[in-house]
């Protein structure tokens, strides 16, 4: 029987906070519905109610026309409803196969786990992504050794292994590279043919328009719009999300698209007008995943690091921050820097904004103030001058426009975008000379992204050298004047000026121009400029 799910006026309150006020959506078998909204608009709560993780305190859920209430995730799964969450539900010490089949392992006589069947069925699932994953992703590989994108794929396969009728993909593409996203979308198309229903939660507008049949927009916990893809325009969706009228000036509606570009202009202008001194000079950097990389960052420059995920970008940043053993020559501000501990790097004016903000960037149960001041307490004397610390914390929070109830609230009370601002803010308090960023806008909503872009541009304009890794090509294109593309731990292209185009970035990321970087670069740039006008209609 074909499934239809209908959520009607669902509501959920946590204490005095309304997480979801009036959430409604319908999805039928063979249909992909995109659920969009800014961070904190209630998307996660709505999908958690549908999968039984959270019990609603208002409204109702209809499955095939009948009212249901799930006691927990297993109850929802038993009815064919399952989700792929962004907070991973994997056990790091267990293998890929063990994780995928946990709680529904194929067994002999209902007693002993049939390992051969587990391996074989896992291999079959992994084959769905063959070509888009590394050979290292073996059924027996421990999950802890996998990079984030492959963990996400295991998570997707885990959901798929239960043969669900409704799948919720919650930001499932946020950590995937473009090849993997394409493969996932092909799979979703197959699922549609098979009659599965899909709810797709994403911040990426282009993916929403590639995949969804219909778009449901949430704002402040309420369903404010239901659009068919054929009649929806990007700016209408943005307008619904932000609550601003779409009829106004086009520039106003397309906030998401324009802001980073504008910010990029500002940053770029700063660096072209005032070419600063060389802040960072790296020669022949080597780590387990980087095999001899040289680069230069100038004061006031926003240098991008691009390429597919896991090509050594994170190693570069960690090595520069003294958090990873490495060899090679690093000079910061002309002085030789051989950091063996982040403390030494911090003392030299280096700051690092990690990618996994919950694991590496924040103490989630502690207050916002404590998180902001964690690297800076040493400057406040003994006993700590709390009023000064509080004033500084307040100033940075205001500068970043962190939406919060107060400095003493725990960081866990913040939405993803605001939490990321806290991670940035704690380093801004130290006024770093060199800022290292590891994919700072991953899983951050459009509004917060724009603010982070603005902030980076302002920092660069003020003379801070910034080395910026992003998995989002658009971001690199609009923010950076120069982008280094890594592939397999080596520099495979340096793109700037006319050669810094989307097609070059994608091609270099796939390793297409590797091997001829040094002398082929100028030619590649020219070839691209020659090709580019022809390709634009």
């Amino acid at each position: 029987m074909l499934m239809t799910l209908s959520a009607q006026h669902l509501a959920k309150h946590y204490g005095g906070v309304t997480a979801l006020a009036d959430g409604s959506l319908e999805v039928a078998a063979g249909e992909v519905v995109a659920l969009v909204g800014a961070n904190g608009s209630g998307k996660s709560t709505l999908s958690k109610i549908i999968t039984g993780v959270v019990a609603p305190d208002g409204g109702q859920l209809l499955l095939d026309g009948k009212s249901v209430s799930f006691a927990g995730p297993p109850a929802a799964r038993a009815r064919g409803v399952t989700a792929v969450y962004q907070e991973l539900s994997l056990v790091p010490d267990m293998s890929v196969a063990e994780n995928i089949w946990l709680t529904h392992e194929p067994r002999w006589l209902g007693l002993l786990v049939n390992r051969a069947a587990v391996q074989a069925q896992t291999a079959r699932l992994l084959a769905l992504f063959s070509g888009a994953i590394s050979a290292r992703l073996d059924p027996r590989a421990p999950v802890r050794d996998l990079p984030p994108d492959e963990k996400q794929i295991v998570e997707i396969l885990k959901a798929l292994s239960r043969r669900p009728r409704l799948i919720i993909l919650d930001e499932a593409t946020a950590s995937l590279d473009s090849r993997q996203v394409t493969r996932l979308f092909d799979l979703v198309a197959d699922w549609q043919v098979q009659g599965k229903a899909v709810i797709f939660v994403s911040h990426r507008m282009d993916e929403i328009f590639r995949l969804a049949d219909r778009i449901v927009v949430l704002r402040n916990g309420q369903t404010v719009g239901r659009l068919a893809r054929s009649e929806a325009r990007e700016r209408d969706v943005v307008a619904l999300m932000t609550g601003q009228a779409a009829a106004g000036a086009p520039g106003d509606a397309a906030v998401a698209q324009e802001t980073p570009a504008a910010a990029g202009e500002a940053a770029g202008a700063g660096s072209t007008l005032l070419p600063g001194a060389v802040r960072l000079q790296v020669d022949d950097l080597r780590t387990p995943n980087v095999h001899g990389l040289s680069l230069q960052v100038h004061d006031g420059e926003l240098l991008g690091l691009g390429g597919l995920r896991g090509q050594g970008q994170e190693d570069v940043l960690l090595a520069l921050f003294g958090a990873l053993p490495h060899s090679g020559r690093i000079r910061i501000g002309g002085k030789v820097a051989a950091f063996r501990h982040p403390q030494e790097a911090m003392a030299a004016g280096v700051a690092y904004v990690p990618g996994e903000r919950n694991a590496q960037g924040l103490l989630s149960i502690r207050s916002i103030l404590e998180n902001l001041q964690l690297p800076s307490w040493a400057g406040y004397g003994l006993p700590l001058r709390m009023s000064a610390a509080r004033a500084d914390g307040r100033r940075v929070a205001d500068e970043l426009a962190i939406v919060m109830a107060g400095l003493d609230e725990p960081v866990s009370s913040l939405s993803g975008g605001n939490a990321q601002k806290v991670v940035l803010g704690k380093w801004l308090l130290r006024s770093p000379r060199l800022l290292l960023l590891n994919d700072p806008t991953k899983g951050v909503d459009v509004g917060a992204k724009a603010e982070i872009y603005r902030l980076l541009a302002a920092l660069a304009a003020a003379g801070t050298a910034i080395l910026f890794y992003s998995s989002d090509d658009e971001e690199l294109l609009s923010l950076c004047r120069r982008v280094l593309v890594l592939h397999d731990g080596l520099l495979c292209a340096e793109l700037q000026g006319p050669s810094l185009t989307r097609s070059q970035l994608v091609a270099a990321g796939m390793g297409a121009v590797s091997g001829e970087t040094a002398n082929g670069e100028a030619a590649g740039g020219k070839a691209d400029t020659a090709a580019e006008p022809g390709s634009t209609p």
Partner: protein
Amino acid sequence: MSGHRWQRLLSRHPYLFTLLLFAVLLLANRLLQPNLFESRVLSGNFRTFLPLLLLAVGQTLVVIGGGIDLSVGALVSLATAILVTNLLPESGMGAFLAVVGLAALAGMAAGAFNGFCVAVLRLQPIVTTYATAFLFGGVALWLLPRPGGAMPQELAQFYRQQTPLGLPIGVYVIIALLLLWLLLRSTRFGHYLFAVGGQPEAAYTTGVPVTWVRVATYMLSGLMAALAAAALTLGTSSGDPRIGDAMTLDSIVAVVLGGTRLSGGQGGVAGTILGVIVLSLIRNIISFANVPNWWQTLVDALIIVLALAGPALVRLLWRRT
């Protein structure tokens, strides 16, 4: 490069260092005690560490499941008290099994209580089981106020003297434990155990019955404590209501020596068995090395600290060079 390989090897087989230590200690022990491999001596050695071995296997399950059980020693005392107050020197096999069954039930009930406090009431395992240890120890003293009691003579004789096929009974117990462990690892419960210890939230959202798995580990630990008491009293033929006190921390040392991570989610029974043997070899060597009495505890402690720190020290040295 070789440092990297060693690290990978060590992370895959965390008790590798202990295995090395085992070889060295065995050699040292053999030099100090030339008759070590004689059947009678070997059998005596196995009898000495068998109780700790059973106890540490139970502890291993709790630790893998993300907990810790500081009440195991008191549970050995309690089970000992139950055994020696209910048995007579002339009791037969049937009576013995019945009383061991009773002790096992008591151990599992006590473990269920621990599990209830930790998994349902969400109390901290270290403090909870430290507190319940006094409770269980108190019951043991109430049942058996001073050392004494009795065990069936014939069975004790058999246990002490028989070496089927020339091997100590302990060898068969170890083989049985390893087989049971392999079996457990292939059950769904075995998978749940590692999931609950490794990432409880992930296990919960996947639908693993986290509470039940935790309670079960403490119940199994209680059961193993009762079996340890049976092995202990068969060896000594009498009961001491405080006999288990010293065994709690030894069981944890053995678990760690065996490469099981105290934070849970990783490890195994085979390593623990090795850990128990290494621990008993250390004690054996000290008693044969003519170390003065007042030095014994110090030397014992130093070797244990070294053994525990070994893998980390090796890693540190490799990183420096």
